[in-house]
């Protein structure tokens, strides 16, 4: 198993200062400033395999963007060490920067005043790419993202969805080995979100790029991520597959049972549940491991005509997990 990202006791503390109300307090701040420290990351230890999509999720301020910024070399940690592709990210070695890409969904990284094509040819020079190959690659990626028609329009005149597609082309132009994506679908409509999602899934499968993805849309994570990293108050509280996470959490599933015959009187089941008289359809909320027991209890009291199990929504699972852990910030 080859790990391309490793961190050891990675921590980052942000320092800010109090800003009390009023002019006098502002003046006082000149000689008596009260500083506040906030730990955005606390001793994070990670090992990430190559060619995987890692979904990084957590509440606002949980530390996910800080982790992404450190791993991409944008900021320096307060303590600890990290290695990405064998490099120390925050030394910003050009050899390292040529192998990665960081896309921040809330920030434009292409040039606002010129067309995407001009931006891409500039990027080709920055990354020392062959101009012809780079131009072909732009066309290839633009076709996949269905946006060839906007390549010659000034970036500032594009819609949010079109801009994000251009940003993606810019981020992938030099074929990075590791791609850091921070909220790539934020603010986009459902169609644009799904185009980008499909594109990423296809691209990563073909190119075996390692992707670290943060998103507020749980669908992004549920549909794309091979591995889930749940971060809360600067600590990794879960590291594993999405499926295992859903199974592991104790969120209730909804089970709908349709009986062949309507019960004439209420029938008591275990754990205070019952089959109510006069009803053909009965709904229950159960724990993951309770389904076999429930079915056998109901079967003992009548024949089941139909059974529906509504899987827990991933977003609900995450929320539930964070709430039960009392870790929501």
């Amino acid at each position, binding site marked *: 198993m080859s790990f391309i990202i490793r961190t050891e006791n990675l921590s980052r503390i*942000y320092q800010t200062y109090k800003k009390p109300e009023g002019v006098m307090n502002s003046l006082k701040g000149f000689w008596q400033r009260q500083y506040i420290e906030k730990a955005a990351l606390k001793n994070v230890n990670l090992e990430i395999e190559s060619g995987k999509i890692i979904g990084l999720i957590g509440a606002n301020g949980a530390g996910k*963007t800080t982790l992404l*910024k450190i791993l*991409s*070399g*944008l*900021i*320096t940690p307060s303590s600890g060490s990290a290695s990405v592709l064998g490099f120390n990210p925050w030394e*910003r070695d*050009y050899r390292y*920067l*040529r192998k*990665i*890409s*960081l896309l*921040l969904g*809330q*920030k*434009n*990284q292409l*040039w*606002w*005043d*010129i067309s995407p094509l*001009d931006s891409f040819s500039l*990027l080709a020079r*920055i*990354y020392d790419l062959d101009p012809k190959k780079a131009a072909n690659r732009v066309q290839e990626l633009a076709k996949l993202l269905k946006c060839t028609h906007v390549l010659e329009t*000034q970036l500032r005149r594009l819609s949010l969805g079109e801009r994000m597609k251009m940003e993606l082309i810019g981020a992938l132009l030099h074929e990075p080995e590791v791609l850091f994506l*921070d909220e790539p679908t934020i603010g986009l409509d459902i169609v644009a979100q799904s185009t980008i999602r499909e594109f990423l899934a296809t691209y990563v499968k073909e190119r075996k790029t390692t992707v670290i993805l943060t998103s507020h849309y749980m669908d992004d994570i549920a549909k794309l991520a091979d591995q889930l990293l749940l971060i809360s108050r600067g600590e990794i509280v879960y590291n594993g597959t999405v499926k295992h996470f859903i199974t592991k959490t104790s969120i209730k599933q909804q089970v709908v049972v349709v009986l062949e015959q309507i019960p004439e009187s209420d029938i008591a089941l275990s754990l205070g549940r019952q089959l109510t008289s006069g009803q053909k359809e009965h709904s229950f909320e159960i724990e993951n491991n309770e389904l076999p027991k429930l079915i056998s209890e109901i079967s003992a009291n009548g024949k089941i005509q139909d059974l529906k199990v509504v899987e827990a929504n991933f977003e609900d699972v995450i929320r539930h997990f964070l709430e039960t852990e009392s870790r929501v910030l």
Partner: protein
Amino acid sequence: MLSNLEYRLNFLVDAIVQPTLSTIVEIVLWTSIFAGAGLSAIGGFGKEYYIAYALCATFLSRISSSWMYEFRMIQEIESGTINSLIVRPMSFYEYYLSQLLGYKFITTVISLTIPLSVFLVYKLPFHWDRLPISLLMVFYYLILVHSMSFVVSCFAFFLNRIQGITSAKNLGLWLLSGELFPLDLLPEPLKTIMIQLPFANAVYVPTGYITGRIGFEYIKSGFVSITVGIIVVNLIGYFFWRRGLKAYVGTGA
């Protein structure tokens, strides 16, 4: 440079309208001063010399100043748009230097025609053969100006809203460069000190050389003092850049 050329009106104002207006203002101003004073010479120099100096100084000072790019660099750091530059294999310093030199080159070539035609029409004192080396000096000086902008912009890693520093720095450079008045009008030893500083090479030295006030030795020592300035300022810049990146929090992302 492509970004700037996108905005044609802005470019035309910078390259044509401003140089034309400043040329007219200087001619009217110095003609009025000499007519009002009823003198044929001030400080040993006649009206033509003053007009030549003023035209040349105004033109060169426009080339050798860089507040626009300095504001942009500060803005990049304050707003966090620098993020996209830091994570790419490129240098923030060189990225902005190339933009500055490219833009200045284009605007200089176009706007140069305006004062030069006035020199020709009014037969003002002007040594045409001295123009290339003087322009080269100003462009070399631009590297120093950019390095100072780099240092100032690095303060944005630690402090917010630092545009006031740019204004104060530019005011200092304006006085030290000789744009306001020829530095040889100053008393000694102030005159020698001011001319030995690299800042005099923005306006006073190249202007004096083109208009025949001073000789080639000033150009030679000017190149040396600019080189020393570039080295010193870049060492300071390197220090603040390293410290700044350590303190940087990746604003806004």
